[in-house]
């Protein structure tokens, strides 16, 4: 903020030299939010829009020559004003109130660097803990040496094209790999519920049977622990919104190689079991230098 003020003052000085010949006063119409007023009311800090032909939008303090200009104006107000610039001076005048106390004044800029938050192919998946369908604790690192495809779902999901399609696709992809005699054997499917309270081990186990049959080879069901979901959701761009018994969510399916590096990600529900089986085959055969 200080730096901006200095830069602003410098710009003003430059502009004064360039724009205003001796004695001439230039005026610019401007608009902004009052951030604060000096105790002696001889200066006002304004978060203003770009002033066309003069300066870009910023927050800075301006002198006020006639304190009557600020009569009735307070921090939080939205104003139109005139910025006057002479050869040696600049000040705010002709302040018109547009709206009183539009809101509390804070400077809040929300920054989200999705590139530094989200994981991409090549990135190592951080380890996390899950409660398995048999009641024990599972970790991603337990599958070291195997390629793993995992996705998220919940057993009460009523939508055939969402969670149910994920598990149907897993079933089909698993079948492809099981019946391919040339396929590698170090691969695993993992269906992860983000509804651990309802999806207790016995619920998961009986739900698993619907898709997997009795044979649990290469496919486990589990429920995520709170801290693991907290850690993973932002990295995988996963959205989970619990509302009563229902959950709004998006779909994220991830494949990691035997060392836990992400090799591919399938967003949404438009991918096929063949694509997933291929991704898992490739990931299983990944060799690291």
């Amino acid at each position, binding site marked *: 903020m200080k730096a901006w003020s200095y830069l602003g003052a410098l710009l003003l000085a430059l502009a004064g030299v360039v724009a205003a010949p001796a004695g001439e006063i230039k005026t610019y119409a401007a608009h902004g939010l009052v951030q604060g007023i000096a105790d002696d009311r001889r200066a006002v800090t304004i978060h203003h829009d770009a002033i066309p032909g003069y300066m870009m939008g910023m927050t800075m303090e301006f002198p006020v020559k006639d304190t009557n200009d600020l009569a009735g104006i307070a921090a939080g107000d*939205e104003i139109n004003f005139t910025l006057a610039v002479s050869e040696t001076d600049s000040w705010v005048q002709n302040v018109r109130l*547009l709206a009183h106390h539009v809101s509390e004044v804070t400077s809040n800029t*929300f920054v989200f660097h999705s590139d530094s938050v989200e994981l991409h192919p090549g990135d190592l998946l951080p380890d996390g803990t899950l409660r398995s369908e048999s009641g024990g604790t599972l970790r991603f690192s337990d599958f070291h040496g195997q390629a793993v495809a995992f996705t998220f779902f919940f057993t009460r999901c009523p939508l055939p094209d969402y969670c149910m399609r994920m598990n149907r696709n897993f079933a089909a992809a698993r079948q492809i790999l099981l019946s391919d005699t040339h396929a590698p054997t170090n691969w695993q499917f993992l269906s992860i519920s983000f509804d651990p309270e309802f999806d207790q081990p016995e619920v998961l186990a009986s739900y698993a049977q619907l898709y997997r049959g009795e044979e649990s080879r290469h496919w486990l069901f589990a429920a995520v622990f709170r801290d693991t979901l907290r850690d993973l959701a932002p990295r995988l761009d996963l959205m989970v919104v619990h509302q009563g018994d229902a959950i*709004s969510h998006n779909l994220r399916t991830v494949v990691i190689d035997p060392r836990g590096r992400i090799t591919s990600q399938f967003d949404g529900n438009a991918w096929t079991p063949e694509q997933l089986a291929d991704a898992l085959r490739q990931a299983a055969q990944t060799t690291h230098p």
Partner: protein
Amino acid sequence: MSNAAESRQSSEERLFLSIAVVAVLILGLGYLGLMLALNHREKAPGVPGPTDEAVALTPDHARQLVDFSLTDRTGRTVTRADLAGQFLVVDFLFTSCSLTCPVVNRHMAQIQQLTTNQPDVKLLSLTVDPRDDTTAVLAQYGLKFAADTNRWWLLTGDKSVLYHLIGTSFLNADLDDPFTYMPGNFSHTERIALVDGRGNVRAYFDGLSENVAAAVVTQIGRLRQ
């Protein structure tokens, strides 16, 4: 039985009948009154019933539309400058959201309809899930709600740009529950925001409220005065 006795008996009968009718009337009215009172009490205090107006909430601190450049579902680039001088009715969505988003967008469709003769009112839907919500996906979604391509923009684009816009201009990022989570931690994504022609966020509404459309239109009318 004599005639006199007969007539005395029938007048007694008439009196009894009248009393009975009045008694039934009083009981009936009383019952009706009680039912009305009970019905009224069934509404919990503070919970707006279906006939109450959706309340316009004031932003908790100064929020202005920041500069942005995003893409609408037709592939058009939309910037803040394109929206200057217009009222903006803004909501937040992800197309795979099956619970709140369809309700909020149904209300957006009502607002679109209620403001057809107010060309300076535009609608803006910002996705919080740009990885899934491509322009093609948003185009499909817009069809569901009969969104007018000239008045209702469904915007997607770079996630950092979207989140900077949503987090700075509209929503707090203060959710702290991994089981109710979206990247950015935005809370109150079910809200509809109203921006005036100078880019100030002037009010928020509960987008799930049945009468939010009327409330938004009323508020726009007030701001015009």
